[in-house]
């Protein structure tokens, strides 16, 4: 399933980057970076899970790979949230308020974080909640159904990170698998409104 996330993320990243090459918009570059990082994270998590199955030792002996994968995804979520925060400042939306709330909430998620994995998951969760909230605010302005689907996709990714973080309390339970399923459902939901774009066959033109 993580491989599916890798494929979807890579397609979106490729399309966004080709958009940056032809139009030159920095927003497209940020989206490209974001989805490339998310996609790379899915790949590392997949390698982590598959090597654990092959060796028969379980996934725990390659925890650093999982941490790098989750870290890469957190960087991707940061770029998504960052794109929204730049525009929110432009449009005087509620970005500073959300940033402040996130900073206040952050310690509550970090408290049980004696492992880097759970600290990264809590940061990812906050960034995704911020991104999803801002996307919903954009939906209220534009009333585009696709924007609402992407917001719900970001919400699913946040839920996946939250459940994955909860795995810390009940290790070895079903929470890990539910988390991965929620994350794949989230990135698939993000891809749904983008199917109408010619992702995968892009002609690169000139930039300004």
């Amino acid at each position, binding site marked *: 399933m993580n491989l599916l996330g890798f494929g979807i993320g890579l397609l979106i990243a490729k399309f966004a980057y080709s958009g940056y090459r032809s139009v030159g*918009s920095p*927003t*497209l570059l940020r989206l490209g970076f974001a989805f490339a990082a998310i996609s790379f994270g899915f790949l590392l998590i997949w390698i982590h899970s598959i090597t654990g199955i092959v060796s028969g030792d379980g996934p725990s002996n390659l925890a650093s790979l999982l941490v790098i994968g989750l870290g890469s995804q957190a960087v991707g979520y940061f770029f998504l949230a960052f794109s929204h925060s730049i525009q929110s400042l432009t449009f005087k939306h509620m970005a500073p308020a959300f940033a402040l709330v996130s900073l206040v909430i952050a310690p509550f998620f970090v408290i049980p974080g004696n492992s880097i994995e759970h600290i990264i998951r809590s940061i990812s969760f906050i960034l995704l909640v911020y991104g999803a909230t801002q996307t919903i605010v*954009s939906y209220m302005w534009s009333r585009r159904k696709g924007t609402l689907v*992407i*917001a719900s996709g970001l919400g699913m990714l946040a839920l996946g990170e939250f459940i994955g973080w909860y795995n810390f309390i009940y290790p070895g339970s079903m929470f890990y698998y539910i988390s991965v399923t929620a994350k794949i459902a989230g990135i698939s939901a993000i891809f749904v409104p983008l199917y109408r774009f010619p992702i995968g066959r892009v002609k690169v*033109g000139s930039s300004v």
Partner: protein
Amino acid sequence: MAVVYRSHFQIIADILNIARDYNDGGSGVNITLLIRKANVSYGRITKILARLVDAGLLQEIPEDKTCRYKISERGMEFLQAYTKFHEFVESFGLKA
């Protein structure tokens, strides 16, 4: 009512759209029409137009003491690409 600012790329797209839509019999549009329709100041539009001409998206046609501007084939391609990627970015609730 909230003020909605256009990004630099939206202004460029607006200028190219005007140059395409008001291309009077293939003779191009004058700068006054561009200023009025694109709602951009003279100081700013001259810089943008110089950049668009350099990039080959607009053709400059000298006329008496002034110039007219005509969208090029490359400009049309850019406009098509911009429309497509603008929609893509807007799906994320962002602006290109």
